[in-house]
Structures are given as structure tokens and as C-alpha cells.
């Protein structure tokens, strides 16, 4: 019997490889310069667990930050607008990341 992973309540990522020498980290640097609280993120995923948009799409803030750090900016740009800015993430964050502002900053920096 084949297992259909798309029915699982969580996503399974494709294998992938990040080359930090070639990755474009300019976006991540610009966002962190504008909102340094992003540096506090430890990737626990509390934000994504309750995310309103995340329940409806494959939007995932934790993944968004990971993609950003790895220079996969196209994927960030594609998904970032799914966020509803509702603020559930910020209530859960144990590290005090100003998640809503980070999302807006990413959008703003992407525009430039």
C-alpha cells in the first residue's frame, strides 16, 4: 500500500540542499537590519502551529524565516502574502519576535 503523505496533518518537505556560499542572503540581512527581533527566532514553530492562514494554505511562518535565511527568496515572495496579520503568532512566540512586523518588513524589502 502506498502512503499518501498529502493527507497527513503536517507537510513533508522534499529533500533539498542549501549552498550558503551561493545563497542570496541580502533579503535576510535587510530584514534583520530593519527588525532585529527576527534574530531571536529559535525556530520552535509555535507561531506556525496556530497560524490562521497556515490552517488554510501551506503558509508557514517558521518555514518563511528558514527560507529567508537560506536565500530562497522567490519562495518567500510567493507565499508571504498569505498572512492575514491576525497576530496569533505573536501571542505564542516565546522569544519575543515581533512577527507581524517581520512579515511586513519582508514584504516591504521584497518590494524594493
Amino acid at each position, binding site marked *: 500500500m502506498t502512503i499518501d503523505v498529502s493527507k497527513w496533518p503536517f507537510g513533508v518537505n522534499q529533500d533539498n540542499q542549501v549552498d550558503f556560499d551561493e545563497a542570496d542572503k541580502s533579503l535576510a540581512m535587510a530584514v534583520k537590519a530593519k527588525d532585529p527581533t527576527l534574530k531571536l527566532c529559535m525556530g520552535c514553530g509555535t507561531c506556525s502551529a496556530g497560524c490562521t492562514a497556515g490552517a488554510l494554505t501551506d503558509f508557514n511562518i517558521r518555514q518563511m524565516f528558514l527560507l529567508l535565511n537560506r536565500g530562497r527568496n522567490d519562495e518567500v515572495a510567493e507565499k508571504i502574502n498569505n498572512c492575514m*496579520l491576525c497576530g*496569533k503568532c505573536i501571542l505564542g512566540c516565546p522569544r*519575543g519576535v*515581533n512577527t507581524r512586523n517581520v512579515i*511586513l518588513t519582508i*514584504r*516591504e524589502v521584497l*518590494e524594493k
Partner: protein
Amino acid sequence: MSEYVFSPYVIPFTAGLIFVIIATFYFWIKALKQLDPEETRKVKENLFSLRIVPILFSWVKEVFLESLLHRKIFRQNFLLGLMHMLIAFGWFIAIFAEHIRLWVYTLNPIEPIYFPIFLFDFLRPVGAESAVGMSPAPMLFEMTTFMMVFIFLHDFFMTMILTGKALSIVKKYKPGLFGMTGGVKHNQYDKLIVMLLMLLFIPRMFAVGCSVYNYGDAMVVVNGISPSVYAFLSYNFGQVLGGLGLASYESVFWWIYSFCIGAFFVALPFTRYMHIPTEPLFIFLRKCGVSTGKKYTGFSELEVLSCPRCGICFDRCQLNTTPGMDVEVQPIYMLEGVRDKEPDEEKVFKCLLCERCEATCPVDIDISNIRITQREKFNENKFKKDTNRYDYLDDAGYRSNGGNADVVYFAGCMTHRTPGTKKAMNALLNKAGVKYMNLDAEDSVCCGQPLIVDGFRDEAQKLISENTKRIKDSGAKILVTSCPVCYNSFRKEYDLDGVEVMHHTQYLKKMVDEGKLNVKKTGKKVVFHDPCELGRIGGEYEAPRDLLKKAGTLIEPDDIKDDGLCCGGSLANTKLTNSEERAVAGDALNRLLAKKPDILITACPLCKKTLEKVSDNKVEIMDISEFLLE
């Protein structure tokens, strides 16, 4: 009278007055032209119908009570109100009284505009003909009882103004007496015009004093009252000046006075005192039913010009009053930037929109709405508008319940983060036997308010239409929400066709009143924290209090209702740092707990969570529904 009395010193005053009148009309017409067509229609509708009578009546009433007597400032602080009243009302009534004196004398309502201001020089008692540099000779009057009364009134009103000025000096050094902190920083033009206003009554007193001294024996005793009594200020001050040998400089003082007042008028349109000529029009338009809503229009422009930068908002703002915080984003600064067409991004965005400022603004400016429109303007330049960003909602696969619920319960995103509230509400609704459904138990969609207050109203429309569809589909007539943010969103942004929007405090009160829910009295001392979104913005203060009085012993902290404190967790803010938010929350919590309650009750999941974060388990924090369930 064919020839008007004239003296060259009236020129600076007259030029200044003409300038300020032209400037006023320029600003008025500019603002009126920028009115939204809808607003213009409202004004025209009212202007050309019988409704104009009550509107005019209430307009006069409000201009008199607020612009002259400063009733709202009196409510803030007696001394502060007294100072404003003495200066504004004193000045107005002094000018008015001098006009009456002139009109009654000449029986001619059209006199040169400079005339009443320099009346003491131009209108002299019989026997005091010699005036300096005046052509033709001054007009003369018999010293009758009428004239005596008006000279007395002039001195009386001048005393009022000077007392007001003296109070304003006291205020500068002892702002605490006036209920202020005195930390407002005004720009150089504002400082200049305050100096001019301060100065211009001093040369006036010198000039009037000299005039009265130079009248000499013409200041006769009337009805047995000597001039030192009926002209208690100008006569006695004139005697002092005469004694010092200054009386011959009378025309010099008139020149200085005229220059000061002319400079005051020229500076006025560039400073905060522009609120004086714009406020009457602003109040009139508001009486016609215009207000700043979703768009920045000519009316908003008038509101911005009407801000007197009195600083009351500054002393109310928790970003200023919280110990250790010094964030200068208060309306007084924000509106100044908007007025000068260069709004500052930090000042526009770094705000909790708690509306503490708006609740006490003596001019009633729609501060929050103006701030949101400014945010929208910034966002237009910053972000590519993407109104299709939530099109994924079409595929969200919402399943209809068949439309057979009486009540639909929308917990709200924030409530999902404080599940205790949600559980308690479900339990209470079951207990009351209500036929209800949870609208956002799964696949919830945000109400859109966080986007709206952050300046993305266009992009929020998709969320609004999706939620509207779901609410209407449920068939319910009452929408209950546990989150005051959603409550305001549903009330103000949604078109729900007769579905009644209620916050859960209101609905629970209704259930209790109808006898469907029983509340047991516990002996616990509770304090209720007014959430900004429910209280000041939503206008609901009493429902939670009624419930708590039935269920416990309600004690009220110092800051309640309109003075309620913001917890600092507002979704309207994205720019405040985490530590700043915690500072606001910590300060609010300390002030709420001053009377040592057993339980701190709130009705907003966001407040609950934010206060819990800083409470260190000092006190139990509960939502009102959890408390009632207990």
C-alpha cells in the same frame, strides 16, 4: 459720518487682520473643495432644509461652550479650564463689549475694523480732545452711566485675560497644578506665537493706561463713582504710568500694541493657533453629520488644522506616562506632521490605537481614523497592493451547517490563543440551552480588523466578504464574539443585514437578564479591566460590570471606563518593541492591582494574554466568561 478717524499706527493691525482673514478663507475653501462628494451632499442637504435651524442652534451652543468656555477642559482640570476660559472668553467678550460701546455711540454698524481695538484713543470723553497724530480729531462722548459701565466692563475683561495669562505663566513652572506634565515640545513658530499672545496685552494696558491718564480731568466722577473705581485697572495703572512720566509715550505704546497684534495675526496661520478660525467651521460640518471615516478628506484637513496642540493627549498617552518610556508619537506630534504634509512614519505607526487620547480630546478630533488613513498612505508607497492575496479562501472548503442556528459564536483568532475563554463560552451557551454553532472552530478566517488598523483596508475586503458569507449562511440572527477587536470589526466594517453583533459580555448579560443563566454570588473581590476595543471604541462599559456585580464584589481601580488603561498588546501596533509593550503592560497591571483584588477580570483575550505575560502569577487573571462559569 463722512470721514473716519485714523491714525497711522492702525496699519500693522489692519494689515495683519486682513492677512488672517484671507488666510482663513484660503484654508476654508481649500478644505471645502476637498470634501468627499458624499460629505458635500450631506452638508448641502442640511443647509437647504429646515434642519438647519436646530443645527445652527447646536452649533452656536457648542462653539460657545467649547471654543469659548472650554467646558471639556474644565472637566479635565479646573485650573486648566479656567486658564483657557479666561483668555479665550475674556478676549472674545472684551472685543465684543468694545464693539457694543462703539455701535451704541455711533448707531452705525459699519465702522472701520480697527476702530473698536483702539477705541480708548479714538473715542475720548469730552474735555480730552488732544490726541497725538490723529486726524481728524477723536470722537467725543459724554461720560454717561452707559459709558462708565462699558469702561468698567473693559477693565473687568482685561483683568480676566491678564489673570489667564498669569495662570499660564504659573502653568509653565508648575504644570502639576494644571494636571499636566509639561513635557510637550512645541516648535519654534508655536513658541513665537505664545510669546506674542503673552506680549500683546501688556502694551495694550500701557497704551490704555496712558490714554486714560491723558484724559486728565475729563474722567469725571459719575453717579458718585470715582474713575479709580469704575476704571479700576486702566485709571489706576495710568496714574502709575503718569507718575513715572511715561504718559507722553502713549502713541509709542499704541504702535507697539498694533505691531504685536499684527504680528500675531500674520503668524497665526502657520501655528497651532490656526485652530481658532478653523474650529467653528469644523464644528459646523460635524453638526451636519460629517466625520472622518475611512478616507482622508477636506474635513480631516480641517480636523488637523483644528488641533490646538494643547497637550492633553500627550499626558494621557501611556507611551508617555509609563515610567521609563518616552515615545513621542502622541496625536499632538502626529497631527503636526500631517498638517505640514510631512507625516513621520514612526509617529504614524508606533501607536496602540487605544483611543485614550481621543476620549479626552477637547476638540473631539477623530484621531484614530486620521492615523489609519495616514498609515494607508504610507503603505501605498511601501507595498505593492495585492487585493487578490486571499483568493485562496475560495478554495478553503467551508462546509455549511444548513443554516439552522439561532446564535453563531465567533471566538476570534485571539480567543483561540486563550482557549479557556472559548471553552467557558461553549459551556455557558450549552448551559443556557442556546441553539448555537461555532463559526471558527476550524478553518477560521481573521475578521480583517488587524489589517484595517494597520492600513490595509482594501486587502481586508476579501476576509470580510468571506466571513460575511459564512455568517449569513449560518442562518443566525445574533453573532456573538469573544474578541472585542472582532466585535468592532463586525459592527463597523461588515454589512450583515440585520444580524445583531454582540460581544460575549453583552450576550451573557442578556442570558442572565432573561433568566436562562444563573449567576451565583461569590465573595471574591474582583477588578474589571476595560479593554480599549470594548470600552472606548466599542462603547460597552456597563454589561461586564452588571455581570460582575451579580457574581462577585466589584472594586473599581482609579483608571476605569474612558480612563481605562491599554494593556499594550494591541494589534494596531507593529512598531513597538517587545520590551516597550511589556513596560506598558507592567505599568497597567500595577495600576489595576493597586486595590489588591483577588482576581483580575477582563473581557478581551488579547488583554488577558498580555497581562498574564507580565503578571508573574501575582494575581489570577480570568476572562469574564471563565469567572461566570465558576
